[in-house]
């Protein structure tokens, strides 16, 4: 064995890991080779010194910090594990909340509906009362009072038989053009009632005042009242009819036909 082979066994020798044969061979070489012997003893010495190197102790703060960090990590882990669980709880809570709010709205709406119907009933009552008052006021003779009465009848759409009759009477027979106009306008509000349209067409045949005729033509044409066609034709054929009224009647006829 040469020096390089012996050198390769140094580590196992100082660790006491060599088998007997190798150990004897190495010791035999060392006795003869001063260089190897010197190196081995130095390395052996250093190895002993190095093995004796003391460890520094752990400061207490290290453990404290570790425990703090560990708690942090555990919290993070818990948050991650229960994160989805919490979410579902949140969702349940939210849905319950939405259900409660929905129910409350429902209750409130029902209540306000009840109130609304009561208010409507009351309004109808007042409307009827106003019509009665208006009919009574027709008894007055001055024009302004009659118009006032017609306007006062308000916007009540539920026609009162007597009231419509009163309006029709005013439209046909009143001496004052303005009263007749107001009566016509008041009747327009009850266009949904069949009688009203008949009354208006009948009135168109009897009227001789252009203003009232035009207003009636406009209203009947706007409401596409086909039964007014005959009356319109009569107006156009009649020589006594006002020229402007004729023009309106012709236009209306074109639209209706």
């Amino acid at each position, binding site marked *: 064995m040469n020096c390089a082979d012996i050198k390769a066994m140094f580590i196992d020798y100082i660790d006491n890991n060599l088998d007997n044969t190798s150990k004897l061979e190495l010791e035999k070489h060392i006795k003869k080779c001063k260089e190897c012997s010197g190196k081995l003893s130095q390395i052996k010495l250093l190895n002993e010194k190095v093995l004796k190197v003391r460890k520094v102790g752990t400061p207490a703060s*290290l453990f404290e910090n570790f425990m703090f960090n560990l708690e942090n*990590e555990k919290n993070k882990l818990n948050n991650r594990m229960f994160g989805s669980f919490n979410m579902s709880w949140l969702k349940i809570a939210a849905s319950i909340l939405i259900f409660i709010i929905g129910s409350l709205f429902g209750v409130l709406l029902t209540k306000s509906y009840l109130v609304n119907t009561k208010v409507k009933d009351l309004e109808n009552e007042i409307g009827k009362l106003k019509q009665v008052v208006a009919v009574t006021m027709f008894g007055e003779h001055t024009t302004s009072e009659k118009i006032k009465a017609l306007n006062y009848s308000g916007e009540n759409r539920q026609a009162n038989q007597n009231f419509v009759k009163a309006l029709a009477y005013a439209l046909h027979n009143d001496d004052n053009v303005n009263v007749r106009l107001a009566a016509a306008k008041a009747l327009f509000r009850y266009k949904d009632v069949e009688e009203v349209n008949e009354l208006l067409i009948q009135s168109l045949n009897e009227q001789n005042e252009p203003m009232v005729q035009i207003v009636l033509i406009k209203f009947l044409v706007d409401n596409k009242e086909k039964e007014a066609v005959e009356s319109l034709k009569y107006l156009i054929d009649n020589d006594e009819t006002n020229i402007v009224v004729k023009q309106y009647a012709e236009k209306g006829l074109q639209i209706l036909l």
Partner: protein
Amino acid sequence: MLNLFAVKELSDEILMYKVKLDNLDCMTQLFNKYNNQILNYFFYLTGKMEDSKDLTQEVFLRLIKYRKSFNQQKSFKPWLYQIAKNTLINYSNSNQHNVIDFDNINYQEIIQLENDNNNSKKDNLLYESISKLPFEYKEIIVLSKFQGLKYKQIAELFSTTEAAIKNKILRAMYKLREIYFKTEKNI
């Protein structure tokens, strides 16, 4: 008899496996067992106690962070030191403004600590010699001689053979001898 069973310690691998399964409390036992070794590993490789404490803390945080990558079929110790080494590499990379020459560490803190304990001057010489060892030699001496890791474990850590590790240790010891005895002659 019952106590014997109760006291029986769990192996590092089982403890780490439990940590892997999110039983983080088991990390406390691993910390108690290894914190001093890891602290000394860093202390002898950096020469700085404060940094070594931070690095040790970081290692155990990393063990938790990377617990899922632990392979319970393999031993725990090489994995622990692998993480310690990676932590050290990160530390040297992130410490750009305060570059550390790992081949020539200032062992002043270590020598001071030894002097406080009334050790002889010759031991200071040993520390000074070790501090001047190239990093890879210093590291292998710290691992095999200071930390008492088996050659097999060191081989696993460096992904090499036991023979290669023994060879490296021999070269490290030769280098140490060169520095140590040359210095002694000068004195």
